[in-house]
């Protein structure tokens, strides 16, 4: 169960951590707990899967990754599991999800590919498509980021 102290910690960790030698010490001071207590809590969250990781999130375009393709695939139900795992094995595929189809939109597998330009994206997509032997897919390039934030839980 997530108690009120956990919520307090999670709320703080979804903000920025300082770029200093002892960032968690600063947070534990703010939260009136010891650094050891905080680190222990964080490790527990990590082990239970609540906290995926402490990490850096980048501005893709500023980092030079200008092409962002969401590829939606129509895959036979019985092949879906193997195909999903196979697609996930590509280094260039950052996200791979099975999603519920919706009416005539009957795509069921979604992959995200980030590359420096569309040409390299297209090459990767063609490789994947020919490897699984399908033409039932559509590439949706992003034209504009309208919003990107991190979720603020327990606000």
């Amino acid at each position, binding site marked *: 169960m*997530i108690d009120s102290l956990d919520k307090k910690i*999670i709320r703080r*960790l*979804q903000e*920025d*951590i300082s*770029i*200093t*030698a*002892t*960032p*968690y*010490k600063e947070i534990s001071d703010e939260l009136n707990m010891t*650094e050891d207590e905080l*680190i222990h809590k964080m490790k527990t969250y*990590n082990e*239970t*899967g*609540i*906290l*995926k*990781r*402490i*990490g*850096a*999130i*980048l*501005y893709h375009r*500023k*980092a030079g*990754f200008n092409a962002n393709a*969401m590829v939606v695939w129509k895959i036979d139900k019985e092949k879906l599991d193997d195909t*999903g*795992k196979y*697609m*996930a094995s590509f*280094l260039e595929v*950052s*996200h*791979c*999800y*099975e*999603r*519920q189809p*919706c009416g005539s*939109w009957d795509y069921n597998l*979604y992959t995200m590919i980030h590359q420096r330009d569309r040409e390299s994206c297209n090459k990767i997509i063609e490789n994947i498509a020919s490897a699984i032997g399908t033409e039932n897919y559509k590439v*949706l*390039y*992003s*034209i*504009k*980021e*309208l*919003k*990107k934030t*991190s*979720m603020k*839980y327990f*606000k």
Partner: protein
Amino acid sequence: MDTIDKKLLNLMQNEIPIDKRPFKILSEKLLITENEVLKRVNKLKSEGIIRRIGGIFNSRKIGYTSTLCAAKVPVNKINEVAACINEYCEVTHNYLREDEYNMWFTVITHSQESLNDIIKEIKEKTALSEIMSLPSIKLFKVKVALNFQGDDKND
């Protein structure tokens, strides 16, 4: 951005250690000093390449529910509709994509009921006849890392 920056970004996207001296651990992997890591990270943050350094949580494990929505928005209404959708703090990502379904956004909330309410409300406010909700069924991969070095074993 030099090779060390790229290696650093690869490491930091994947994991910043939960340890009293997280940047010291990263510095040892890169064979540079902790101070140099801090200097580089601060620079990458102020240049806007790093958006945020902090906790990345698993929304499901925290007890939240989410979906990916897609809407067909007429070109002359894009700004207006985006402003309406982006106003919700439960909408964390929103992208304009090249497709008939051109607006793609994620909704994360604490319950299925509130998720349905938000989508219903957005439909009413924007007067869009159709918004698809495409919840994920199975996750095959989430690896947000932009790969700066294809052959980096640490990636």
